[in-house]
């Protein structure tokens, strides 16, 4: 197999490639934050009676909350702030498809590149 000789990349081309990667990193990490997509679905289930008992705290728990500086009123929003786990099937299916498609592409394209590497490495000998 003929040995592959990569083209020389200009300095401007190298700087451009670095810029592409950096911009992609920032978009991937920053965009979900900016669009408010980050974070889990939690919401407060309010109670009318704000007592340790109503909040489901026994005497030991109540004494620890108080040691930490909380009253039933100030602890209410922490204790009643709950996850509501609902399986959103369309999103779950989209997530599964995206993940599977990504890994399939990754392994297939890698294998194609890997065969070139192995052919050049071992056919040269």
């Amino acid at each position, binding site marked *: 197999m003929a040995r592959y000789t990569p083209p020389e990349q200009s300095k401007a081309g190298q700087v451009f*490639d670095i810029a592409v*990667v950096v911009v992609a990193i920032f978009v991937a990490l920053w965009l979900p934050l900016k669009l408010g997509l*980050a974070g889990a679905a939690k919401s407060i289930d309010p109670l009318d009676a704000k007592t340790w008992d109503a909040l489901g705290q026994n005497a*030991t728990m109540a004494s620890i909350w108080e040691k930490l500086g909380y009253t039933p009123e100030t602890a209410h929003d922490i204790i009643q702030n709950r*996850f509501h786990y609902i*399986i959103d099937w369309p999103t779950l299916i989209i997530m599964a498809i995206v*993940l599977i498609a990504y890994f399939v592409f990754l392994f297939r394209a*890698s294998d194609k590149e890997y065969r070139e590497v192995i052919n050049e490495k071992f056919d040269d000998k």
Partner: protein
Amino acid sequence: MTAAVETGLTTTIHGDRVSLLRVLGPAHVWALGVGIVLVGEFTGWNFSADKGGALAALIVCWIVGLLYTSVAMIDSEVTSTVAAAGGQYAQAKHIVGPLMAFNVALFLVFAYTMLEVSDAILLGDTIVAKAGVEGLTHNSFIAATIVVLAWLNYRGVLMTLNVNFVITAIAYVSIVILFFSVSPWTQGAVLKLNELVTPGNALPYGWIGVIAAFQFGIWYYLGIEGTTQAAEEVRSPARSLPYGTMAGMITLLIAAAMTWYVCASLMPWEYLGITYYPLWDAGKLTGSPLLENLLFIATLLAALASANGCINDAARAWFSLGRDRYLPSWFSAVHPKYRTPYRSILFLLPIALAFAFIADLNQAITFSILSGVLQYTFMSINIMMFRKKWPLGTIRRGYTHPFHPLPAIVLFCLCMVTFFAIFLGFGSQLIAMTVFYFLISLWFHFYRYRFVRRGDQFSMPWPKPQGY
């Protein structure tokens, strides 16, 4: 600067003049792995209590411990055989292919950079909370932490990991001291587990909460696989890497169990699930100023050790990308005096700083976990391919892990559960990040790969893989 460095010819593996130094032993490998991870006991793991309750946090501590034991076993075998900087990146390059290697290096850089960001935020918030001064913000502490640790990494790997060994050991001992100070063998005196974790509140969301808790359960051990980044700088990779990694994993399993027991026995799960400082709070709740101050200092040291190790690992993964021309070879320069990948260290510095100021702790942790789980999924498939392409006896392995393929299957299954757990809280971020990796893979495969030499990427003295 030598001509060799300027042209990006940097390492002895590729026959060049300036290389990374082989100066590390098993203790440094332990310090790198445990140093990165131990901060997870000081913050992060407890968010799993928020997602599923105190008992869920314990269940995932054990099950995720199994996941990471599989990671450590698999990693020890592959890395003791593929001993090159970049760790899992070098493994992917030799076993799966260039595109996978490119992705794995990005997983590593993302996971460690965002973990570094989380560490810096934790350190800043802890100091601000302790100071209690109105108007004081964490920004200056975050910036100082990232810049000073980058400088330390710039100056040399031996000093960096010597520092890590000392501060990690102090932080670890503080957990042991806390554990034995609260009379763990007696309930009722200080610890009140029976009254805090009751049949009524142990699993407030049922078993779906246990699955959801996997997301932050990862934080108990995330980063132990970073030991492999030192592969090119340890004196004896075949001995030091498996020994340091497995010792680190045992250390962490003990620390995680002690941490859960003490914290769950001292505070209600609702508070445990939202505090940024579970161990420091545990110290406060014992009523001992000595323990409170010890755990405050240990929280800072654990955050420092972790950020320090993360800078080390992220820079080496980025450096490896440059060395193979997956990214411009400018990044592959080794400092002629300090023998560190200094350009990679400096390049990643502003990225870490930027995210430290725009992300909060919870989000930074999630970004790091996402990249980690993608990487573990790769590792479970990678070991199967490694054993198939080079069966036992065909090449010399520094370590052969037992029970193959059980650890790989366990790892793969637990990764699938963790993806589902992430979906339950951060599904949009998972999709956004996967789309990013997909697009950047297209860019690499159809454009960037043209600048990469083909046969030179395979640098191990192995026979041709079976099936090729």
